[in-house]
């Protein structure tokens, strides 16, 4: 009997939606436009965020990084990863469950030091890398201003940030000296020659960063082939948790001993994570307001429909429907309308956003006066490629359904509480 009731209620709800076609279409239009806008704004927003993350992790330590727990604060050469930990991490990244997500891996020795020339001395972030691995890891090709990147056979070569080059009054081929604490805790110096100049767009990077070959650093500082961290760039930030979890399991012993720590980009770069969270919050707030307005529209439309159909609800209750079942008809109508129009809106949003998949949405016209936009170590690309995530689409559909349900509750209550005898009084 309950099953029969449910079927009858759904049939009544559907026919009423069809009967008041203009009202239905008007309400549905608001939901369709809202749903499409929601998909578009989040696809563009998520695409932009993914680009920020990609830029940030390539300039930094990757989506996931393995390093000693103390290193993040100390930045000292003493806090190098043990060779067996590095090996274990690199082997774990080759495992079939994570390898498809790994785009590049780079083991680096990154320490603070001092760079000097005849023009003066400047603090420097010295990053010793395997040139081949780093070419795939960083954004070397996009950033070279002059010269070239490091090559495997380089010995005393340095790839230097453009602003550091300027402040030390260097140029391509110039020699300069870097000093840092070695493994014996002595200050050691090394003569280098500028082979390439880069500009990342991030002032802190361009003012301080010097890339040198890992072999050069090993000889200079006595660190041999040791590194301070192993960074991994993934095919998308969504794979971070998977790879991080895998590495944590693979490195369980050194992690427990305090010899290693595995971090995702959110931990490694909390400022970038916070910036994205704030931007997301803004999008949630804007879309929330948009849907509150749409929700009020639905409340208004459904409530008007309820007011016009008071007699009908009275009749239904006289014929044997309970107040709850009467309210359920209105709820089913509201939910069906929201679900159908919301899904159509999502489909339209996907279709509309699909257009920007190829070339992306070019925002350079509104950003041209700003120049390079950076924050939290990430460069903002003016061309945004939208990103669709199943999780996001599910969130959007759930949100639309919730708005539809919430907007239908009050009208449903009004329908349930209709005074049967008043509702059926003949209009004289």
């Amino acid at each position, binding site marked *: *009997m309950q099953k*029969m*009731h449910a079927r*009858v209620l759904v049939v*009544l709800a559907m*026919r*009423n939606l*069809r*009967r008041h076609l203009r009202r239905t279409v008007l309400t549905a239009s608001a939901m369709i436009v809202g749903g499409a806008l929601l998909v578009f704004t989040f696809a563009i927003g998520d695409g932009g965020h993914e680009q920020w993350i990609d830029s940030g992790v390539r300039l930094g330590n990757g989506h996931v990084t393995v390093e000693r727990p103390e290193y993040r604060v100390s930045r000292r050469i003493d806090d190098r990863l043990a060779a067996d930990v590095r090996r274990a991490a690199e082997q774990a990244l080759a495992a079939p469950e994570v390898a498809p997500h790994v785009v590049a891996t780079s083991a680096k020795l990154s320490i603070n030091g001092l760079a000097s020339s005849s023009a003066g001395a400047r603090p420097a972030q010295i990053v010793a890398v395997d040139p081949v691995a780093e070419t795939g890891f960083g954004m070397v090709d996009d950033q070279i201003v002059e010269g070239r990147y490091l090559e495997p056979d380089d010995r005393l070569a340095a790839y230097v940030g453009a602003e550091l080059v300027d402040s030390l009054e260097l140029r391509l081929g110039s020699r300069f000296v870097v000093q840092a604490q070695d493994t014996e805790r002595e200050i050691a110096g090394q003569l280098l020659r500028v082979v390439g100049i880069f500009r990342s767009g991030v002032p802190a990077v361009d003012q301080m960063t010097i890339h040198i070959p890992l072999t050069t650093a090993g000889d200079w500082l006595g660190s041999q082939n040791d590194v301070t961290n192993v960074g991994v760039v993934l095919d998308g930030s969504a794979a971070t948790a998977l790879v991080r979890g895998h590495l944590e399991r693979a490195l369980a012993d050194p992690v427990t001993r305090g010899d290693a720590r595995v971090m995702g980009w959110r931990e490694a770069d909390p400022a970038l994570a916070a910036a994205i969270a704030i931007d997301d919050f803004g999008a949630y707030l804007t879309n929330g307001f948009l849907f509150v307005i749409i929700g009020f529209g639905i409340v208004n439309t459904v409530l008007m429909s309820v007011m016009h159909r008071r*007699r*009908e609800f*009275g*009749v*239904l*209750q*006289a*014929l*044997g*429907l*309970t*107040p*709850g*079942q009467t309210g359920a008809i209105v709820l089913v109508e509201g939910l069906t309308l929201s679900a159908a129009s919301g899904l159509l809106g999502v489909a339209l949003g996907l279709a509309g956003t699909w257009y920007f998949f190829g070339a992306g949405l070019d925002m350079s016209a509104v950003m041209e006066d700003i120049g390079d936009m950076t924050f939290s170590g990430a460069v903002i690309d003016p061309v945004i490629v939208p990103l669709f995530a199943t999780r996001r689409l599910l969130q959007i559909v759930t949100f639309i359904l919730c708005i539809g349900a919430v907007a239908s509750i009050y009208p449903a209550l009004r329908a349930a509480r209709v005074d*049967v*005898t008043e509702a*059926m009084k*003949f*209009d004289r």
Partner: protein
Amino acid sequence: MANDSTAAVRTAGVWKIFRQEAEEVQAVRGVDLTVARGEFTALAGPSGSGKTTLLNLIGGLTRPTRGQVWVAGRDVSGMTSQELARLRLAQVGFVFQAYNLLPVLTALENAEFPMLLQGVDAAERHARVRELFARTGMDGLEDRRPGKLSGGQQQRVAVVRAVASRPALVLADEPTANLDSAASEALLDVMAELNRDLGVTFVFATHDGRVMERARRLVRMVDGAIDSDERRA
């Protein structure tokens, strides 16, 4: 007061008092009434005499301020909304002055609606409704929506809807008020025939002389109370 389980309806000292702002309106005042199964009874009286309110009390559409109402042997006075809904579904059929068919359903679907809610299977529903449609001259109009039917036809669908689910009684509130003479007579013929052939208990609220003439029992109400109760052969 004891319940008479053989009666379709019994009221005992029923009052219904409405409050309109500071004023108290006694719509029904201490009515004692018993309607036996199979009766064809009219509650007559001028506007404001309380006949529609009494009908609503019997049908469980409103609750008495004081007193008790039994329908098919069950005391409805203290029932919850859900219990009243179930009682109406199982025991009471309604015919309204304004027909009150559901506009989104066809004539057949309207007539079947209470049976759908009762869970009667499709074959049985169709058989009952088609038989009643044949009796009421509604053959061939099954697929029409209410908007495509005349007032008389809509009221006949309403009567079929009220009767098809085989309730203990049918309550008809001014069923002929919107019909012309011919349609009224035809409708009364139909209801009298259903009463006679199927034993359906009818209680009318009316001030239509034609209905009063056809009723086998005429209860006159004045100012919310029963003024006279006349039985005819």
